[in-house]
């Protein structure tokens, strides 16, 4: 643009409505709030408000189709008298702890392998990521067939390889096996996220660090321990925090695979909350159960905001 044009561009425009709107829209103080309003309405109406309702339900004796009264913290306390809830509480920690630990160890291993020189890189990555893209409810249905008490392909393979004694465990019908099965499916579904994200972290580690470590005589184990792991720390923190909240609040896998059984041994907060709150109609108690997810959520949010975003 020639310098002479500037005068023409900035010449006062006729004050029409169109121009006034235009001037208004060019003001950040106006356009900014206008652009975030739809998202804000959505969040207030369908996230913040239901959250307050959950709090209210949890403090009341709400039952489907009946007026409710506030009962204070009674729901939260009475839950501890229920065997099903105590079992669920324990399950949630066992499930989350083992699943996240397995995903972490396997995820790092898989990422290290994917970071090597490979022949069919795209194909391999595609295969690795597949469990993450398929609808969980449907793929879990596939797993429940694989764990079927009569026709389990897992048992068939185990017996064929001589690892299991026929007929093999009834995966979904026995307590500890059921928990193992549920954890296995969660690991299967969550592993791609760990592997691919950690892989991205690996790729971004400067090669010079490894060369320097090698020059100092560090073997491959020492290089992994003193270069790779410390450099991966921020990525690992993000992945673990994300996965913790997602695993802790998991619903689909347990619902489809075991429905919480046998005898509540695989129930998680989400599945128990649905059973009590919807199937039995005790909304107050159901809401109280799902709010037990809240402390973990609050911790993850706090940790993410404090550490992760600062490092990013």
């Amino acid at each position, binding site marked *: 643009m020639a310098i002479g044009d500037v005068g023409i561009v900035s010449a006062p425009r006729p004050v029409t409505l169109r121009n006034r709107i235009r001037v208004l829209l060019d003001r950040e103080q106006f356009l900014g709030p206008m652009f975030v309003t739809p998202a804000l309405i959505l969040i207030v109406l369908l996230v913040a408000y239901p959250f307050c309702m*959950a709090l209210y339900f949890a403090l009341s004796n709400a039952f489907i189709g009946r007026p409710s009264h506030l009962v204070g913290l009674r729901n939260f306390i009475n839950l501890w008298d229920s065997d099903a809830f105590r079992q669920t509480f324990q399950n949630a920690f066992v499930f989350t702890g083992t699943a996240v630990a397995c995903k972490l160890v396997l995820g790092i291993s898989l990422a290290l392998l994917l970071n090597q020189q490979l022949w069919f890189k795209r194909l*391999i990555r595609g295969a690795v*990521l597949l469990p993450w893209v398929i609808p969980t409810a*449907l793929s879990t249905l596939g797993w429940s067939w694989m764990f079927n008490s009569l*026709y389990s392909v897992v048992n068939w393979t185990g017996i064929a390889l001589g690892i299991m004694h026929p007929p093999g465990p009834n995966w979904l019908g026995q307590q500890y096996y059921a928990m193992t099965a549920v954890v296995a499916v969660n690991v299967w579904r969550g592993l791609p996220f760990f592997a691919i994200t950690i892989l*991205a972290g690996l790729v971004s580690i400067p090669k010079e660090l490894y060369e320097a470590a090698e020059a100092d005589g560090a073997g491959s184990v020492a290089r992994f321990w003193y270069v790779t792991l410390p450099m991966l720390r921020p990525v690992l923190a993000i992945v673990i925090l994300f996965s913790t909240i997602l695993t802790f609040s998991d619903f689909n896998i347990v619902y489809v695979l075991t429905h919480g059984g046998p005898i509540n041994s695989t129930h998680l907060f989400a599945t128990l909350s*649905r059973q009590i709150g919807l199937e039995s109609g005790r909304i107050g108690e159901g809401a109280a159960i*799902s709010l037990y*997810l809240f402390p973990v959520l609050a911790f993850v949010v706090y940790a993410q905001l404090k550490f992760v975003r600062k490092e990013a």
Partner: protein
Amino acid sequence: MGSRKLRSKILSHVLLVPFLLFAVFPFYHMTLTSLKQDRELYDRNAIPLLITQGPTLEHYQKLLWDTPFLTWTKNSLLVTFLATGLSLVIGTIAAYALARLKFFAVASFGTGIFVTYLVPTSLLFLPLAQVVNWLGLGDSKWSLVVTYPTFLVPFCTWLLMGYFRTVPKEVEECAMVDGASRIQALWRIVLPIAVPGLVCAALFAFTISWNEFIYALTFTSTSDQITASVGVTSELIRGDIYFWGSLMAGAVLGSVPIVILYVFFLDYYVSGLTAGAIK
């Protein structure tokens, strides 16, 4: 290539085999089961890893003609496309405002979006069911179009904020000096540059809403309103009787739209997953 290097390359592939089997086998088994005749499916002496007595499309025929599977799929498509489109629009403008504009409380709004992004759906489904009823959307697929944006918008906003920040501010300022309004600059300059980000956000939003289960299960129940995931997992099982052939056929067909997207846009999936932590 040195023989030592070649050996380590081969070793990496060998070590990858168990991981790949673990990842892919369930789909193989699912597909295989859906193609087996019942006679072979329920034969305890048959080898479950192969089809030995001839394949059949009987389960697919049963699924498509004797069940409302096509209706469920149509519902899924409708909900997914609308929720994705809506969320993409709301998310794009919010992300642009948060990434580019200075205004009152912009930082705390950004934090709010991030916190919402972390809230799991299983925390809110009970009270949200009430809200859905009040809105007059109880047992309607439209309840899903309205509620899915609650997790899609924070996600899209978060992802797109990153993309918008990579567009140099000067490009936009140049356009504005040349007489374009801010909205024109956004529409003609910033959005075209951010197309990869938009594609990525659209793909992930599509995948997440296609895969959503707990809201769909809770808010809808009539056979002509439910989505494919809910239909296959609840309507195809009558009491304790499982029709495994049709169930697996449903699981395979219900995954097809996502697999098609996935095959075409694999690189976007990989880069999107690595761009930020994603649910």
